[in-house]
């Protein structure tokens, strides 16, 4: 047991940034390790499955691939850890454990004390921070929980007159950075995000091609490859129709599904900008950062930039490699937090 007290010999410290996402979670560590795992956790359904898998729990892509044998959980669905569900809390604990195992090389002795900055959806701050802290107890020595857009902005050194739009799988987070720690009024979380686009696309394809056999996983894979808003296409894919592989044109379903993001994003962006002091609104409009996996939808940045025309124009920059932008930002922040602040954050939860 390591405890953050002056009386105990202090272990080496490893600072990390962690991005807990609905679909993917990532870690960036001060020792140079950067890893991503899919946010899936599965437990063998029965003794037979346990015997075949020879494991008590599977995490990440391995869990997804072996899901028929597993009680599979995606514990961060909708950006929230389900309160009162011990299984989902345990699943989040397993994801964090796996991330830390990847960041800390096996056999390293003494085991370092982890000082972690954890990014979560903005609305998670309201309800779930206590749960997350409890889940992290015993795994990290000290924790700072911040909203994901704040971590992104900190890492990009874009903390003043900036809007971060982070479109993940389960949630879209928007945050205005005005040189102060963002309050609830500076942030919004929408449940219209990548998963909603997948569902929309799946439904539209089924409507248009009722004889085609298309799973949500196929729709998601097509979206990740062909998504667009505005002008684009054609998108032609292979799908079994009445059992026969058939070429189907899903250009319009794809466009419709992806463009379903536009209106809620536009409305929320304009609402947040309207709350900024008038003399700074122009700067914020011209400093919008679009990130997250679904931020890579072709033409989305341009469409949002076009929407800013209603307010006099603006500029949207798209982060090209969004997988680690959150955890990298968390690490940058972790490196800047002073030792005495880590002690304050450890509080009674110093055990690791």
């Amino acid at each position: 047991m390591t405890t953050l007290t002056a009386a105990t010999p202090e272990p080496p410290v490893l600072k990390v940034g962690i991005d807990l996402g609905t679909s993917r979670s990532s870690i960036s560590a001060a020792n140079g390790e950067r890893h991503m795992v899919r946010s899936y956790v599965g437990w063998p359904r029965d003794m037979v499955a346990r015997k075949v898998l020879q494991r008590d729990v599977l995490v990440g892509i391995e869990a997804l691939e072996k899901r028929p044998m597993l009680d599979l959980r995606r514990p961060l669905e909708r950006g929230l850890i389900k309160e009162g569900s011990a299984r989902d809390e345990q699943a989040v604990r397993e994801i964090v454990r796996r991330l830390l195992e990847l960041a800390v090389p096996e056999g390293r002795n003494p085991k370092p004390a982890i000082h972690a900055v954890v990014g979560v959806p903005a609305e998670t701050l309201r309800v779930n921070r206590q749960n997350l802290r409890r889940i992290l107890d015993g795994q990290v020595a000290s924790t700072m929980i911040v909203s994901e857009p704040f971590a992104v902005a900190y890492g990009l050194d874009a903390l003043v007159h900036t809007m971060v739009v982070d479109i993940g799988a389960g949630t879209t987070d928007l945050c205005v950075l005005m040189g102060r720690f963002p309050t609830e009024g500076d942030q919004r979380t929408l449940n219209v995000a990548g998963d909603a686009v997948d569902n929309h696309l799946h439904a539209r394809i089924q409507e248009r091609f009722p004889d085609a056999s298309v799973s949500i996983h196929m729709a998601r894979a097509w979206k990740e490859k062909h998504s667009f808003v505005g002008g684009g296409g054609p998108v032609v894919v292979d799908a079994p129709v009445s059992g026969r592989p058939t070429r189907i044109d899903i250009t319009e379903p794809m466009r419709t599904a992806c463009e379903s993001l536009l209106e809620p994003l536009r409305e929320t962006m304009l609402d947040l900008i309207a709350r900024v002091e008038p003399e700074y609104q122009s700067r914020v409009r011209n400093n919008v950062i679009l990130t997250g996996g679904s931020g890579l939808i072709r033409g989305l940045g341009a469409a949002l930039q076009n929407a800013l025309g209603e307010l006099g124009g603006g500029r949207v920059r798209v982060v090209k490699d969004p997988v680690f932008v959150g955890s990298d930002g968390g690490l940058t922040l972790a490196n800047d937090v002073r030792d005495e602040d880590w002690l304050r954050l450890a509080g009674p939860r110093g055990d690791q």
Partner: protein
Amino acid sequence: MSGPDFKRDLIEAAVRDNEAVGPRSLGAGDEPDAGPGRRPRRVSPWSLLLLLPVAAAAGLAYLELNRPEPDPSPEAGLDGGLQVPEIRFTGPPQAVDVSVFPLPVQRIVLDPGHGGSSRGTAGGGLTEKALALDIAYRLRNLLDDRFRVAMTREADMNVALDRRTLIANRAGADVFVSIHVNWLPANRTCGVETYYLGPTDDPELSALAERENSEAQGYSLGDLPRFLEGLYAQARQDDSRALATAIQESLYGRLRAENPGLRDRGVKSAPFVVLIGADMPAILAEVSCLSDAREVERLRDGNYLQSIAEALDAGIQSYAESLLPTAKLTGA
């Protein structure tokens, strides 16, 4: 402005923000702009709803019996431009065998009151919109092992009153529960009360309905006849009254144990716009009040918010179970 001092200030704020996360508490700091008073009342055409009982008596004879069904398509909303978002019901990852839970109530839409620029009541740094959303999240987590649950808003955002019931109608909900936190005049004991749609001749209830209706958008005076008809849709009103009764009994019965001073303010009817458009049993629960300093302190405690959610959960369950015998007889 991006130098080390500036960042140190930001980090200090982040540390303080983390330190403020007490054990299961809703911190006052979460609502820095919350003032002690209620949002100002404004006069709107909706105050005409208060005349509903009188108008109904004179006008019922002229109403058509078969009012047109609301257009369920998102593109053809009430004003031609209304867009209704996709509804995603939450629930367990695997399909539930409904024969295990043969409840006629399967889909529930929760409506956290207010949101966005509509703060609702406020007191002690807490706001009605934040509390309602917090309780709704907790309630959803309790319900979604047994029911399919959706929410009219899942974030701090504006949702028009007509849109809330349109969401429930489109989702084919069996029950609509709107969650609110009250503000009572001075010297009035805080309590819980549950409303269903109907007329009232109580001026206080009229005032409450006026406040809750004041942000109504999307309707016009031309909708008044339909509202009147809605008010007197007797079958739905009976179901709504039964739902309100079950929830009120549960709210008061359970919360009184940890809040002995709580008053049972009863089941009442009032012309709330948010209930008018609902095609299913619909109620509005005032689960607490922010005008009472002691109640504000309780509302800071996440455990108490959880108790409110559990009481609502039990009330909904009780209502659902009350429908079971009929369901079995009809083979539903």
